[in-house]
């Protein structure tokens, strides 16, 4: 990174990870509390993505500090007035709630794994036994579990909004062009839900294809997720219009330079690719039934995720490249920011790390909630048999 672009690719990556982690609250909380039955097979994936992402968001921000050994100073000398302190608090809280939301609904499944007759290593069975917490499926246990799940589902919604709103405030509480916006909180949150939905769709497709889960990740489920993604994309589009159209209409001095740089300047190819490729094209494609089939949806979701990553780059870097004090008498290379080889490597490493966590979780834990699926099936059979 450079003196001017002190927040470069690492902070872009951090915002991306925080954004993608919001999928947990979308699927496990919002859809659960609205009694949306079709979301059931997705809860586990979404929570796994959320846990992996928020863990790496925390790691990335420590990398960005440049001196990880000083991380404790952020806590020991925390200044309550600083949004950075709020962010540390809310990330930690969200991480704990996400882990609980992944773990709690999994208790009955862990008991099934513990009691199953499948041949598995002794240590793995022991792990299931410990994690299953003596789950016997008694009425009292079920009641406690359901109550805890509901409480966590309610709790995670404000925390999820909080985590990304506070992340947006890291930028919006400054007076810099491109960041000085009252729109930033909802703009970030809506973008986060959109990329989170995209991530779940990509994961659904991969697990369906390679783990042969067509029975659970059905075409109908893809169709539901596609419609949800369109809705979220339209909301995000609305906030984008607000975020860029109003400053472009007013063209205040410094905002104008920023807008010009994005619309026609050095960042224009990336900006328009992200806006069109990562938002407009997905909306158009998913409006058509053929676009809502698994394969096209997978490619659309990859577009959404890639676009979302570069969108964070466009939020962070161009503003830093246009400081209020002119860049005089500095080497030419200081006036531009492009991530170095080391920055790219570390960033790709963190993305791979998040995928590795998901891989480990998928390797040892059921990806489709078994007990919940059985319960829903029973309910459907019961409903069908009733006159």
């Amino acid at each position: 990174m450079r003196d001017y672009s002190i927040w470069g690719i690492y902070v872009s990556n951090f915002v991306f990870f925080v954004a993608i982690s919001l999928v947990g609250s979308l699927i496990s909380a919002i859809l659960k509390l609205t009694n949306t039955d079709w979301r059931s097979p997705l809860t586990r994936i979404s929570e796994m993505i959320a846990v992996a992402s928020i863990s790496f968001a925390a790691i990335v921000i420590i990398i960005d500090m440049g001196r990880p050994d000083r991380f404790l100073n952020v806590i020991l000398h925390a200044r309550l007035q600083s949004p950075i302190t709020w962010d540390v608090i809310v990330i930690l809280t969200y991480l704990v709630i996400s882990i609980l939301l992944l773990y709690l609904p999994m208790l009955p499944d862990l008991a099934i794994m513990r009691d199953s007759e499948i041949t598995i290593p002794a240590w793995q069975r022991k792990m299931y036994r410990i994690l299953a917490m003596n789950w016997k499926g008694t009425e009292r246990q079920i009641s406690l579990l359901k109550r805890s799940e509901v409480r966590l589902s309610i709790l995670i919604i404000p925390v999820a909004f909080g985590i990304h709103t506070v992340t947006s405030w890291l930028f919006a509480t400054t007076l810099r062009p491109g960041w000085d916006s009252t729109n930033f909180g909802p703009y970030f949150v809506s973008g986060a839900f959109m990329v989170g939905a995209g991530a779940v769709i990509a994961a659904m497709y991969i697990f369906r294809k390679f783990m042969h889960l067509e029975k659970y990740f059905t075409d109908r489920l893809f169709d539901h997720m596609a419609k949800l993604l369109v809705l979220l994309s339209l909301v995000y589009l609305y906030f984008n219009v607000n975020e860029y159209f109003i400053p472009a209409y007013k063209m205040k001095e410094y905002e104008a330079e920023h807008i010009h740089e994005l619309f026609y300047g050095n960042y224009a190819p990336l900006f328009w690719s992200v806006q069109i490729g990562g938002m407009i094209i997905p909306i158009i494609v998913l409006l058509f039934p053929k676009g809502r089939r698994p394969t096209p949806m997978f490619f659309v979701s990859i577009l959404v995720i890639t676009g979302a990553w570069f969108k964070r780059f466009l939020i962070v870097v161009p503003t830093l490249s246009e400081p209020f004090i002119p860049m005089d008498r500095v080497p030419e290379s200081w006036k531009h920011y492009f991530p170095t080889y080391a920055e790219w490597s570390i960033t790709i490493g963190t993305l791979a790390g998040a995928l590795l966590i998901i891989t480990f979780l998928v390797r040892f834990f059921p990806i489709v909630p078994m007990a919940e699926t059985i319960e829903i099936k029973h309910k459907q059979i019961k409903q069908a048999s009733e006159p």
Partner: protein
Amino acid sequence: MYQGVWLAVCFTVFLILFDLTRLAAQDPEEKRRARLSLEYMSSNVQGNQLKATVKSKLEGSYVGIPEVKLNFYRNEINEDNFIGSIATDTKGVALLSVPDTLDTVHQGGVQLYGVSLENDPNFQDATQELEVTPATLQVDMLEEDSLWVLSISLTKADSNGMSQPIADIPVKIYVKRMFGSMLVSEGIETTDETGLLRFEFPQDVPGDKDGKIAVEVKIEEDEVYGTLVYELTPSWGIPLLVDQKSQIRELWSSRANAPIYLIVVVNVLILVIWTVIADVIRQIFWIRKLGREKSK
């Protein structure tokens, strides 16, 4: 068929997304000419130093070049006279402390120093030499009646090692402030024929809470004697009264003075949320307990 079209569309969009090459637009590498300058600085705090600056022309103006390795020499530039090497900082400046032993050997005479830029991958080789006559700047603080006086003397050693006054050398007096130094000597003050200068220090300079100020007496870039600095910290300033407003609880105050409403709101939120989390964790252990009872 449709999948093929889809792949083509997505691939094209990807190509555009990854077209970041314009962001990395930089000048092609070529060996440029560097401008090298060398100064000699003597300070009662920092000791004797050689200050070399590397600049190069960029977009019509000269800018300091960082991370360039410079070699320093005493007498002519050759391997036998090498005294050290150091890389330039972000402003293109390299400072090398000259060991006292080297200076004392040459007291009373003219000393030659050199600096060279050699075998740099980006810049052409360059050298610069400097002749300097070591001199001594001494400053005493005097309080005469109600006046504060700086008694400044400038001398050099002759060939016998005897102290000789240096006359007609301009001297400037500064007080260090937060973002630079404030000149307090008005007009041009020079040493007299006895090498002395008497300066009445102003009495209206703000100091720290004890009235201390950091004074710098300077002979700047003299072509014979180089730069000489004498630093001292008399309690001649007006004591600073701590502004009570800075103790007010505001968003911009120190961490110890965070607004009460903020402390309350944040702590209540943390307490409420973490109480629920703690209760859920407690319920997990309750579930375990219920399971154990059922087994029995």
